[in-house]
């Protein structure tokens, strides 16, 4: 009956979202009067999970699983759910979890709600609040099946620490062969990815050319932030497509989103609206982004950004 949570790791270390989904699973388990079991694949130290509400860890370690594969991983989670008799399975909103969740749903005959932003509002009927219309609204959805899958929106629930500890158990599921083979993975290892970032610094056409991105990267580096860009910028080839955020690009749900020289087209706002605090720096006081922002600076990015970076450096030095 345990709530099962898939806690993702990368190179053996848990991603921050793993601790967030564990915290979420704990909230669900409390509502249902049960415990939390985590399934980990090739993770090293699992003690962190205990501090975020997990009672038991099923550890899968197998070099065949070093590269993520949606169908194989979904099958492993299914085996864990069956072993635990879980009625609720919690996953994150990472690209990998969103890839495997629908496959898992079919396997478990489970209803799946994605982009969930809060603990269930009711355990029976099982009701969750999720975002819809690309962050322009929420909907309350009941999951009507016996087994339920909840995809938690990144950065929506936060981390909840407690004093518990988790027992660990080795788990050796059968490994499903399947027809999608990963040939190569191309990933910047020294950069914060937009999906994992708490702070995102984003810039648009107001920067006039790709040669001016140095100041954006410097601001991002002071804040430990990911860099992003608007659609025109990626269409012009100034920045890689992987940095394009907005409706047709990557979604952003950061704690802080800083937009520099981005006017704020509705397609852009749709993609970043889930961010908690939005700061806009733009020369045009009429830019639509000011209506969507929490804080605004009307000014020239070439003047404001370097000075803001300096101020933040001082702040960091004082608060280190």
């Amino acid at each position, binding site marked *: 009956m345990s709530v099962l949570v898939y806690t993702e790791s990368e190179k053996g270390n848990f991603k921050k979202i793993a601790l967030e989904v564990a915290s979420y699973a704990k909230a669900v388990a409390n509502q249902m009067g049960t415990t939390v079991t985590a399934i980990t694949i090739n993770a090293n130290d699992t003690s962190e999970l205990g501090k975020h509400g997990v009672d038991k860890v099923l550890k899968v370690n197998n070099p065949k699983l070093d590269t993520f594969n949606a169908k194989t991983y979904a099958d492993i989670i299914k085996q864990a759910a069956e072993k635990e008799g879980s009625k609720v399975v919690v996953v994150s909103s990472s690209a990998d979890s969103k890839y495997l969740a629908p496959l898992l749903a079919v396997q478990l005959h489970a209803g799946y709600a994605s982009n969930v932003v809060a603990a269930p509002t009711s355990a029976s009927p099982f009701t969750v609040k999720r975002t819809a219309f690309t962050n322009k609204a929420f909907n309350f959805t009941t999951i009507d099946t016996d087994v339920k899958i909840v995809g938690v929106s990144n950065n929506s629930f936060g981390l909840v620490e407690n004093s518990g500890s988790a027992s660990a158990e080795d788990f050796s599921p059968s490994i499903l062969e399947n027809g999608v083979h990963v040939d190569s993975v191309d990933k910047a290892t020294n950069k914060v990815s937009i999906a994992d970032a708490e702070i995102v610094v984003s810039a648009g056409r107001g920067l006039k050319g790709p040669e001016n991105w140095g100041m954006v990267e410097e601001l991002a580096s002071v804040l430990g932030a990911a860099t992003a860009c608007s659609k025109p910028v990626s*269409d012009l080839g100034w920045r890689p497509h992987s940095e394009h955020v907005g409706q047709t690009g990557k979604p952003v749900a950061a704690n802080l989103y800083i937009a520099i020289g981005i006017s704020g087209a509705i397609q852009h706002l749709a993609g970043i609206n889930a961010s908690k605090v939005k700061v806009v720096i733009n020369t045009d006081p009429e830019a639509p982004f000011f209506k969507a922002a929490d804080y605004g600076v009307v000014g020239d990015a070439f003047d404001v950004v370097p000075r803001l970076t300096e101020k933040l450096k001082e702040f960091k030095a004082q608060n280190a």
Partner: protein
Amino acid sequence: MKILVCISHVPDTTSKINFTDGDTKFDTNGVQFVINPNDEFGLTRAMWFKEKQGATVDVVNVGGPETEPTLRKALAIGADGAIRVNTPATDGFAVAKQLADVIKNGGYDLVIAGRESIDYNGGMVPGMIAGLIDANFVNNCISLEVDGTNAKAVREIDGGKETVSTTLPLVIGGQKGLVEESDLRIPNMRGIMMARQKPLTIVEPNGTTTETTTVKFEKPAPKGAVKLVSPDNLDELVNLLHNEVKVI
């Protein structure tokens, strides 16, 4: 190669989102509906396969008669035929189940759907189809090449991308990158005229099974006005971010 492109009929991005009937129904009053942007990238890639590799391309939608103009637009862009499964799109699973039947009956080799629709953002239909018909599946697909029954695809991952090889039958959760925005086609008059002659087949649903139910909608709390900080007082901005909203 027989390609099926799944088309969601969604409110245009600029639509005002409102609800009626005690916040239980989406208010379609004054809303213009379009092909879901993620599906349109897939449709345009399918046109490339049609023109360069002789593929046939059908489009499909699960929904009532009101979705037919959207399917006609896909025909005007160049699809060969359209199918409408005559039942409301109640939840992701119900839609995937109807589409799985269409795919089995039509013998499609490649199914292209958008990674998610911009209305309900469920992001589950492509994966569920793949699970139901036991086909290979690549989500967040930003590049696709097919040679015989072999396919090479690139998937966007958090912080990078991944190249995979796989085989047909294949289901794709597509997005921008499959083609670029500038490759998207606006139907011309000839396409629109031809679309009128193309078959639009209405299929009755094979039962309905839902797994989830939307019970209520809610609009976000109205946002307070922006707080403007003078460019000469950036210390104040740092202070607000640190003390007022505590994000740094």
